């Protein structure tokens, strides 16, 4: 069993950490594009009576731990 799974990480978590590590050491021109892929978040708004409510960003950490 791999060391990261023994430590309690899932495959996706470990794969995302490794991917982020690689993006971090790219040359600047490619890095700019690659780092944009890193941060993902969900915007949600509740619609009531045909009107859009307030928009909220869920998980504002930007998925930093890669979960």
């Amino acid at each position, binding site marked *: 069993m*791999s*060391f*990261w799974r023994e*430590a*309690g*990480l899932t495959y996706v978590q*470990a*794969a*995302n*950490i*490794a*991917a982020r*590590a*690689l*993006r*971090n*050491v*790219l*040359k*600047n021109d*490619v890095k700019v594009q*690659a780092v944009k*892929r890193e941060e993902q978040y969900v915007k949600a708004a509740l619609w009531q009576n045909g009107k859009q409510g307030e928009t909220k960003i869920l998980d504002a950490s930007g998925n930093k*731990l890669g979960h």
Partner: protein
Amino acid sequence: MFIRSATRVARPLARYALARTYATEATPGAGKLLLNFSAPHQTYLRNIEVQQVNLSSTDGDMGILADHVPTIAELKPGVIEIFSSSDKPKKFFVSGGFASINPDSTLNINAVEAFALEDVDFDAARRALDDANRRSNTGTDLEKVTAKVEAEVYEALLAAQK
């Protein structure tokens, strides 16, 4: 470690040699290895005919030719080398992912991130390795294992530079 990976490579080839079939039963794509290579955000190669692909899996390094035994391999951070008869060899560094070798001699490689070695800043990688090694001994268990996963990537990168 080396002996272990050597046997892992040898075993699929030995099994292939034993599986004798009539020529008419050969798969349609016999003798050709078709490669698809993609990441979630980009397709690098689609249906390219290649001679051989070398990759490092968690079970050891593999060299894949046409008519390889069907397998799924988990990729380690490392270099993927692609040899074709018509083009010069291509090299990518992948952070991880999976390679599946199908019975019809198609090879699908799905990587999380893949870059040419020219795109990597090796000085930054060296600094990042030192930093990750330092962090692998301090902090919470989560921080330690995160640093270890990072160090594995940087070690593979620096090994690929040589």
